């Protein structure tokens, strides 16, 4: 295909019209394309529109396939939304980023010093640099942490800054993110998706890679450990958190264990993870939950996601917390009014990069300033910690308030901030480049050699055209940030340079909660499959024989009752609930499932729900169920062919085998009972997906013995009870503590007894009573497993 490459010097995106009041990232004041953008723009403008659309679709497909989402709360509901990628990256020159980085590093050092003072000697207050009420009345200043020195010597290890370019072209800090900065994972995902869009040119654009930053941060966290035995973990509030996806993603990217508060227990001042191998020490916790929720004993007593004793562990030096508990106080909006004056006090130098102009309304001179220019002032709560101009505490323009309302806000509880103008950056609107306001999130990680700035980040691009910060709150998109060098950049990967001989690392620990969820994921998925097969058999009979099938179908009723299924509905609620339970478990262990497996499960759920509204009983349902069965086996295949065969997989496998054994014993006890109506045996063979095997093994007709043999006792049939117990025995024997000092654990003992019992039976010994007894024994294994590994 012929490609037209325009001359970079005369490039001009057609119809691209920046605002006169704000600088633009792409065009300079004279309307010339800035040098950093020229190479990129030449490529971009050389693409026919439909080809560009195809490229964009590649990026979107990547995000969709990886299951990237964020959770949005609106009107009391929380929904997962696809990640809104802007396909045009924001390009920044290496030299300019260097300057930005110097400003951010200085600010990171300032925040560390402020934090040390607020939780230490309180010089800032005693010397009058900070009003005491901003600290004492601040819910983020956590009294139990006062005087607790961080074990690592530092309070802060990862910071994010929301920055924007003001009208004069200089960068400003809009907000400091110190509590539990989010977004590093999204920055990474943006990068991967964006490189898919520009896969053919990315390598030639001299864009700095992100992997080096992550490698350094991962190594820095590893270095904070107290010894080689203890571990680093990421503490998440759980799947309902708006950025849970990111927690799971970053945990699997960096290879850290993802845990929740209930996975932890503090013993003698040392935090331990409850794992299937017992308590395992942990010494570094990268927390993604707000401080107050970390410990119900000393912080918010209502928290249900915390760990009692965590503050105590910090007090005793048993743990390094990234960042230290209480760091949320640094996000206090009113602090911005004081930081410019505090910098010379604590650092001995002035701020290199200014923050957004802020007036604390507790001061008289400040109040006059607000009254002088109300049209430029946004008034919001002084102790708010959210991003400026956003959310419930975003504030209002002073000139929009009535004189009474304004008077009520001119006190210590309020703060005024300049309603800044932001620079614009190009986004694609209807296939055309269009300027939109943007802010940029930059990340800094502490390393043994000081702060390191991520060479990139992510930009938030406003949906509304006007270049005001206020416009950001109306939603928009996220763009990758390219730091562009004049020279080739070094390609970095997460793999450290090899030194010494190859050493295989030991697999990570498996928290008990994760094991529990994997076990139940296995069970629910298998249960779903069992239900689908039974329902399909039911509906096929109904379609074939109509009312004549009634006596036979009644024989299935006890089985449907077991699973709370109403077979008179095409896709019954009980089936959808089981699927929901499976997804709930999968969501809890998302860091351990491949994106493909997760997508397959979500796809199955969506399809089932779509079908449920219109599928009718009989042939229609039978066909729908067949389609669902194929999707379900797709998920099982992805999981069982791809998962590393260690403890995590073992629990999933045990769950699956357990559920299938339970299902099959119930089917045989019901349908192979001598009292069951004619045709029941064939139904059992069909529900057991063994029609072909039965035909091949037993040329003669179906009898109770052939069915019991094939579905109960046959070691070769992957649907038989025996096959499930073989599999369970094998995996249970490999679980930690299966044999201790030569003695079998309670679980191993019960497993062996149950397994041997079945293995020594003949078809005629396995009557209905024996089947029900066997089912009871198998159920008991589940309780023993829970007792041994999930408490």
């Amino acid at each position: 295909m012929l490609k037209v490459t325009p001359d970079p010097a005369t490039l001009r995106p057609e119809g691209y019209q920046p605002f006169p009041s704000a600088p633009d990232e792409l065009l300079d004041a004279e309307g010339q394309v800035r040098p950093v953008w020229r190479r990129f723009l030449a490529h971009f403008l050389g693409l026919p529109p439909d080809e560009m659309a195809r490229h964009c679709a590649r990026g979107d497909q990547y995000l969709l396939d990886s299951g990237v989402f964020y959770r949005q709360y609106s009107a009391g509901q929380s929904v997962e939304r696809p990640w809104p990628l802007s396909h045009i990256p924001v390009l920044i020159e290496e030299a300019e980023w260097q300057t930005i980085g110097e400003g951010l590093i200085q600010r990171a050092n300032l925040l560390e010093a402020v934090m040390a003072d607020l939780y230490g000697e309180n010089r800032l207050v005693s010397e009058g640099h900070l009003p005491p009420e901003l600290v004492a009345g601040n819910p983020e200043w956590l009294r139990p942490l006062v005087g607790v020195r961080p074990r690592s010597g530092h309070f802060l290890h990862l910071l994010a800054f929301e920055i924007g370019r003001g009208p004069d072209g200089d960068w400003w800090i809009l907000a400091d993110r110190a509590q539990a900065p989010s977004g590093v994972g999204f920055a990474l995902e943006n990068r991967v998706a964006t490189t898919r869009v520009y896969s053919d040119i990315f390598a030639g654009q001299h864009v700095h890679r992100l992997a080096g930053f992550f490698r350094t941060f991962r190594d820095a966290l590893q270095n904070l450990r107290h010894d080689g035995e203890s571990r680093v973990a990421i503490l998440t509030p759980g799947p309902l958190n708006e950025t849970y996806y990111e927690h799971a993603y970053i945990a699997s990217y960096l290879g850290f264990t993802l845990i929740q508060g209930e996975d932890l227990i503090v013993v003698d001042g040392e935090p331990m993870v409850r794992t299937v191998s017992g308590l395992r020490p942990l010494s570094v916790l990268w927390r993604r939950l707000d401080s107050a929720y970390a410990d119900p004993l000393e912080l918010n007593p209502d928290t249900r996601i915390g760990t009692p004793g965590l503050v105590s562990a910090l007090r005793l030096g048993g743990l390094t917390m990234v960042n230290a508990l209480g760091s949320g106080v640094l996000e206090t909006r009113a602090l911005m009014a004081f930081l410019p004056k505090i910098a010379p006090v604590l650092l001995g130098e002035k701020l290199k990069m200014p923050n957004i102009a802020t007036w604390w309304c507790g001061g008289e001179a400040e109040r006059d300033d607000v009254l002088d220019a109300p049209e430029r002032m946004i008034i919001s709560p002084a102790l708010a910690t959210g991003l400026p101009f956003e959310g419930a505490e975003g504030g209002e323009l002073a000139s929009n308030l009535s004189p009474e309302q304004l008077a009520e806000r001119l006190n210590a509880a309020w703060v005024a901030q300049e309603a800044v103008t932001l620079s614009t950056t190009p986004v694609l609107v209807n296939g055309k480049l269009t300027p939109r306001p943007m802010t940029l999130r930059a990340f800094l990680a502490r390393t043994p050699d000081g702060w390191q700035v991520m060479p990139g980040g992510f930009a938030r691009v406003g949906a509304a055209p006007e270049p005001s910060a206020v416009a950001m709150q109306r939603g928009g998109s996220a763009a990758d940030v390219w730091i562009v060098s004049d020279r080739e950049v070094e390609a970095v990967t997460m793999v450290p340079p090899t030194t010494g001989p190859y050493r295989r690392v030991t697999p990570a620990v498996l928290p008990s909660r994760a094991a529990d969820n994997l076990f139940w994921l296995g069970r629910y998925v298998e249960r779903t499959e069992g239900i689908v097969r039974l329902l399909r058999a039911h509906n096929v009979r109904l379609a074939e024989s109509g009312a004549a099938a009634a006596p036979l179908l009644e024989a299935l009723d006890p089985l449907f009752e077991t699973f709370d299924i109403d077979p008179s509905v095409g896709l019954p609620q009980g089936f959808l609930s089981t699927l929901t339970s499976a997804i709930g478990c999968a969501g809890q262990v998302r860091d351990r499932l491949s994106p493909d497996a997760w997508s397959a499960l979500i796809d199955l759920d969506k399809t089932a729900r779509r079908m449920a509204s219109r599928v009718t009983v009989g042939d229609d349902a039978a066909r729908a169920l067949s389609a669902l069965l194929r999707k379900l086996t797709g998920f099982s295949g992805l999981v069982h062919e791809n998962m590393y065969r260690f403890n995590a997989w073992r629990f999933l496998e045990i769950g699956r085998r357990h559920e299938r054994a339970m299902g099959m014993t119930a089917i045989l006890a019901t349908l192979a009972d001598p009292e069951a109506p004619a045709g029941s045996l064939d139904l059992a063979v069909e529900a057991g997906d063994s029609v072909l095997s039965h035909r091949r093994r037993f040329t003669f007709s179906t009898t109770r013995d052939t069915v019991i043999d094939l579905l109960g006792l046959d070691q070769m049939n992957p649907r038989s009870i025996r096959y499930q117990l073989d599999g369970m025995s094998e995996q249970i024997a490999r679980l930690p503590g299966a044999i201790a000092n030569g003695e079998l654990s309670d679980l191993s003992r019960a497993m062996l007894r149950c397994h041997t019992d079945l293995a020594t039976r003949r078809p005629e010994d396995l009557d209905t009573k024996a089947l029900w007894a066997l089912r009871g024994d198998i159920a008991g294994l589940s309780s023993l497993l829970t007792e041994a590994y999930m408490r």
Partner: protein
Amino acid sequence: MLYDIRLVIRYTFGQPTGAGRQHLRLLPAWLPTQQHIVEETLGVTPAPSERREFLDFFGNRVIEIALAPGQKEVKFEVKAKVHRLVRTDWFDLSPPLVRLPAEIESQKSLGPHAPHHGRTASPRVPMSDAITAYARTAIAGAETVRQAVEALGLALHADMTFDSEATEVDTPPEQAFAGRGGVCQDFAQIMIAGLRGVGIPAGYVSGFLRTIPPPGKPRLEGADAMHAWVRAWCGAEAGWMEYDPTNACLVGLDHIVVAYGRDYGDIAPVAGVLRLGGSQTSKQAVDITALDDDTAD
């Protein structure tokens, strides 16, 4: 005044407990010019698997314990001899109310006894328009901060009924105030909300009360369990003054201090959950005996 203190708190559980961690704020405070500990023990049955002591932000002594799971009954027992000293600063050294804000501002400190901790809402004592309005009326006419504190305390004592059935440990002050009834914790937290509402820094004090009053004096309300009262910051010179709204009196020789905080949540006598499920009952028995009554005021 020398007191012999005996406190027993006993928890009984319907189901055996899970592993638990508790913070106990049960031991009398060390207060150099006001209260001396002669001897003390805090017994925990069954024996905890961990036990350590630390001072919290407000300087209170905290005993941290960890209990193994599976308990059906847990008992905490305090035995102590405490010398309570007479306070001498009975003159009203507090400033007029209008001068209080400037005096607060002059306190450039975040130390445990700085007034700033008592100025705004705390987790269990949110600001309340209803209580603030009531407090404004109650203190009308008061010239000094101390007069205002006493006026509010007297008003609450007159308008509120001591009623152990009216509230629970988690009842918000505004709700207890609306019902005009409660126990010492409610009296204290309502008064704190009122004082903060009118700009007087206020905090929560837990402690003990002598069980048998001095001869010829009435028995004080709240002596059969741990007690609670209020402290109010009365300016740079007078500092904190303690007032007991349940009994409408300044805190003196009959009160023994255990802990200071912003509200009940900061200094709950037993913090931390033991229960897994099922029922829980607790019984508290306190006996505070005066060993020498000669210094009674």
